[in-house]
């Protein structure tokens, strides 16, 4: 197997894993499948551009140096996610999971239309850090620098998140809340704090993906994020709803399988790659309906 393929699989898998984490984190603490996550991403993308309906995007924040741009975009992602919790989801705390999901759809469409009103519907060409597209020599393979940075960033994020979840008080509370929110509250764990934190982290993840997508594709489109959130949802189900390691592993797996299918399917079948990918998903779910990485002790809860 060539090294390029490994990098492709890792970066796509990492992107899926990141998106799946954002979904799983919030599902874990409040049983909400947040489909608006995709529009959080799109919002962060458009935050880079000066509002206008022109076909050519003029960078606003996007023209700032990286050390300003990156924290600002992350902050915007956090702000939007936290705001949606405060304005929408907090008031639906006792609602059925299905109602919550519908609310997240609705919120996503509202955000998408706000973007449409401000920026118009046509995809815009955006140039963010074009130098990162250059291939560099890495372990004897020609790999785009961007891909290395993406993989490195995601690995760093996973390490930071794991350490945070393992060794901080809020991390402990989040893990407990994901397993049994009711019991955690009986022990004095504050629901609002934990849920707010889950939204904040999911906002960071959405902003990260926004930057990765723009840098990779060079396009800003109000629809971007919609398809990744679907894959993220599939990955969380595949990983076992509510299991964070499960979501990450399933995300990686989906990305890797998708990359392999793209590389090894007969050329005439490649356009239908997703049919094979999702066919495999169905097979996996038939064999393990509780998800790939669920502990039996946790599965009865969901």
């Amino acid at each position, binding site marked *: 197997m060539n090294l390029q393929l490994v990098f492709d699989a890792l970066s796509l898998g990492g992107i899926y894993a990141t998106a799946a984490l954002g979904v799983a984190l919030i599902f874990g603490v409040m049983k909400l499948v947040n489909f608006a996550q995709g529009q959080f991403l799109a919002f962060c993308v458009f935050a880079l551009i000066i509002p206008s309906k022109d076909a050519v995007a003029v960078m606003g924040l996007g023209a700032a140096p990286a050390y300003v741009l990156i924290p600002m975009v992350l902050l915007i992602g956090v702000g939007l996610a936290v705001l949606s919790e405060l304005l929408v989801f907090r008031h639906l705390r006792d609602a059925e999971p299905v109602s919550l999901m519908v609310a997240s759809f609705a919120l996503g469409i509202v955000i998408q239309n706000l973007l449409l009103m401000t920026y118009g519907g046509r995809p815009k060409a955006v140039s963010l850090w074009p130098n990162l597209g250059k291939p560099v020599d890495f372990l004897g393979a020609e790999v785009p620098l961007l891909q290395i940075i993406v993989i490195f960033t995601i690995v760093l994020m996973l390490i930071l998140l794991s350490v945070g979840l393992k060794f901080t*008080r809020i991390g*402990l*509370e989040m*893990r*407990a809340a*994901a*397993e*049994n929110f*009711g*019991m*955690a*509250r*009986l*022990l*004095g*764990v*504050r*629901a609002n704090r934990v849920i707010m934190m889950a939204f904040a982290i999911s906002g960071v993840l959405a902003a990260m993906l926004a930057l990765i997508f723009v840098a990779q594709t060079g396009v800003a489109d109000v629809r971007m994020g919609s398809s990744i959130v679907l894959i993220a949802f599939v990955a969380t189900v595949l990983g076992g709803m509510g299991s964070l390691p499960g979501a990450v592993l399933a995300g990686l797996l989906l990305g890797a399988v998708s990359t392999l299918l793209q590389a090894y399917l007969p050329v005439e079948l490649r356009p239908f790659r997703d049919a094979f990918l999702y066919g495999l998903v169905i097979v996996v779910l038939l064999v393990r309906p509780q998800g790939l990485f669920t*502990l039996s*002790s*946790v599965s009865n809860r969901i």
Partner: protein
Amino acid sequence: MSKIAVHDLVVSFGKLMALREVSFLVEEGDLVFIAGPNGAGKSSLLRSIAGEIQPRKGRIEIDGTIVTGAGPEVIARMGVSMVPEGRRVFSTLTIEENLMLGTGMRRDKAAIAADLEEIYTTFPILKERRTTSAGALSGGQQQMLVIGRAIMTNPKIVLVDEPSLGLAPKVVDEVYNQLCALRKERGLTLVIVEQSTSRAARVGGKLILLNNGEITRQGRVEDFADDDLISGAYFGMESGE
């Protein structure tokens, strides 16, 4: 001022009435048993006090403060700790993480460490396996863990829902020994739900008999006629009256 005061509490799930105007008082340091058959509303009563269930009507006071409608974390922070039915350990957390989870509201670091040491002394098995997943413990060990976990919140009131459920009689004895020891040592107010009255007959304290969502009788255990308690291993309407 009573430690817990419940006034005309009504709890319903849809059309099903779980509690119909239940009133009682618990004084500081009391040991109170709430007993009654399946579906009598015992758990609903305990969970209402803990803030897990919002009552339809009525009022709950803790230390004279009205807490009706407050969330469980608010009530936990007032010094009320619940040991729920079925134990509910966090099986994805280690034993020590389970114990430490409830200390988030405490600021007394030294006292937290001392409490942890005390629990480890009382239940050496927990110390031995402190870094292993709590899911690997046996039922009896899990019961000790959740009692320890409740104590780690430094509570004034501990609510225990059917501690004997699914445990061997010998283990139940040990659980009760520990509960009573902790109560004495820390001056806890202890409210225990059990299906049968046999444990209350042995341990003493106050007894509240609940049936069909209503209190059929309450008083000190010794004031209940002996035959009541013996026949009351499984309470019907008659034996409570």
